[in-house]
């Protein structure tokens, strides 16, 4: 049974639904990310789990108990905020000790636990500092320590790294993953940065307009996005909307406007009827050779725009089925206006809803 379950939950502001009949299950010990563009409802979901928001309808079960009406301060969940939300008037030690003292833990144990958790987040020796004397990364560590020290039943992160610079962000996400796995604590993590989510999560839920479009492990989502929205979100830029679909010999035949394509049958996540194909710019090829190649679909076109990306060139190729973007490494680039053939590897054509 799942540790955490949202059952048909609805949240509304001013009669406008942010979440409607929303469902989510999370297993014990997992780190699950909620990923999506702003306004998709990921933060609302997190705040609902934390108890900062109340559901209009539906139930929230935690460890088999109904938590729907349990107030935030009785939930024993750790929350890490985007702004860190450290208490400015308290030292690092008192910040971390805050939750323990509310739980009437004796002062000797408070001291021992605070110092131990500060070691875990690599902040030993910083107890006497005040938040304003710390760097962004250090503040975030204090915030994590403060949430962890109360031995929370669930750890919640709200875009915790978005105020840090790029290098620190990478270090911190490794750190968060290490701590989470070390302590085996169930974690919900919200971010709009897909790389961040994919790198640290056991499961990623991609949200759009208040619903989860796909919930899978990162590798599956990365390879086989379920919908066009997800495909676009994670870097698929090329789409073909086919009119007909047929299946033969473990391959899928696709037709539109006199063009015939073949796609390999892979363990995709889209529905068995889907006729839309998504392709990454790195997976297509541009060539001037006319000879057929095995395992490739082919389309005539001409180079519309050619731009230099550093390691490779990017082409926008104009065809009868629309424009396609291709990234390709090569010595001498194609010129704008040049007639070319566009090659689509069978196994790189991903069917999406």
């Amino acid at each position: 049974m799942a540790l955490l379950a949202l059952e048909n939950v609805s949240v509304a502001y001013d009669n406008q639904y942010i979440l409607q009949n929303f469902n989510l299950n999370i297993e014990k010990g997992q780190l699950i990310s909620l990923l999506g563009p702003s306004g998709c409802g990921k933060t609302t979901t997190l705040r609902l789990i934390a108890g900062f928001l109340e559901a209009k309808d539906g139930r929230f079960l935690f460890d088999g108990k109904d938590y729907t009406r349990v107030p935030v301060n009785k939930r024993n969940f750790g929350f890490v905020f985007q702004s860190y939300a450290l208490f400015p008037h308290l030292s690092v030690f008192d910040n971390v000790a805050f939750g323990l003292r509310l739980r009437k833990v004796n002062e000797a144990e408070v001291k021992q636990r605070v110092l131990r958790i500060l070691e875990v987040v690599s902040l030993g020796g910083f107890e006497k500092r005040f938040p304003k004397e710390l760097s962004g990364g250090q503040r975030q560590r204090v915030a994590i320590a403060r949430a962890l020290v109360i031995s929370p039943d669930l750890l919640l992160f709200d875009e915790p790294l978005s105020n840090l610079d790029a290098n620190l962000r990478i270090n911190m996400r490794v750190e968060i993953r290490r701590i989470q796995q070390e302590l085996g604590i169930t974690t919900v993590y919200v971010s709009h940065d897909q790389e961040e989510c994919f790198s640290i999560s056991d499961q990623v839920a991609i949200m759009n307009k208040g619903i989860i479009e796909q919930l899978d492990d990162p590798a599956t989502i990365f390879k086989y996005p379920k919908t066009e929205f997800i495909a676009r979100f994670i870097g698929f830029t090329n789409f073909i909307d086919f009119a007909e679909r047929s299946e033969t010999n473990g391959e899928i035949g696709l037709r539109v406007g006199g063009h015939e394509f073949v796609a390999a049958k892979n363990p995709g996540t889209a529905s068995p009827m889907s006729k839309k194909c998504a392709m990454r710019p790195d997976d297509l090829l541009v060539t001037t050779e006319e000879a057929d190649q095995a395992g490739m679909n082919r389309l005539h076109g001409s180079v519309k725009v050619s731009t230099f990306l550093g390691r490779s060139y990017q082409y926008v190729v104009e065809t009868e089925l629309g424009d396609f973007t291709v990234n390709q490494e090569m010595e001498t680039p194609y010129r704008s206006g040049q007639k070319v053939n566009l090659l689509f590897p069978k196994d790189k054509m991903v069917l999406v809803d």
Partner: protein
Amino acid sequence: MQEKNRGLALFTLLVFLFLLGPLIIISFTSFEPGSVLKFPPEGFSLRWYENIFNVEMFMTTFQTSMIVSLLGNLLALLLGIPAAYALSRFQFRGKGLLNGIFISPVLIPGIVMGFAMLKYVIVVYHLPIYAGLLVGHTVLMLPFIIRVIASSLSNFDFAIEEAALSLGAGRLETFFKVVLPNIRSGIIAAILIAFLESFNNVDISVFMTGPGVSTLPIQMLTYVENNFDPTIAAISVVLMMITAILMFVIERLMGLSYFTKR
């Protein structure tokens, strides 16, 4: 690089001379040994400062002013802090209207407010004059308390409050342990600004005088109508010193930007 503009600098100097000159002159005349106000004074004497203590009405009205300003301040804080918190923290319908109501005491002419209060608070509600004075000054101070505390709350990250809640603190506990300590300087500044407004008030107090009840500014007005000795100058110097000290503390607590923002 500072662009020099001598004409403008001179003009500004004259403006400030106009603003501060009278206050400097009044300070000098307070040391006049004779019994008629003169500038420049014909000597140096502290007798008029001593005289403040000899005029009993100054002592009693000073006491009344202090009690009314301090007690009214406390009342305004008790009413104003929760309101300022609610208005800064939450979005809700009718917020604009409530904001308007809480700020309106500064929009209504003071003399009108004083008269309306005399008419209703004293006569219709039958409150004693002393209580009416207290109520009037509380109403007067409320917008200042709310405005200053709300501006200090606008710099407060309410995620900090949520952090305390998520760590297990109750709402009230959170307010006292986390919110209050972080807006402390705003609250002290609010107290001082409201105190000055109340202590110097004439418009409302002038209607709330009765047998044995009056405030210092009203007593000063009455005194000036009948006497022209330097006692008032001496009191003025004392009041200006109090003002300067309080203003210095306000500046330390929250800078002077409160006064320039409108």
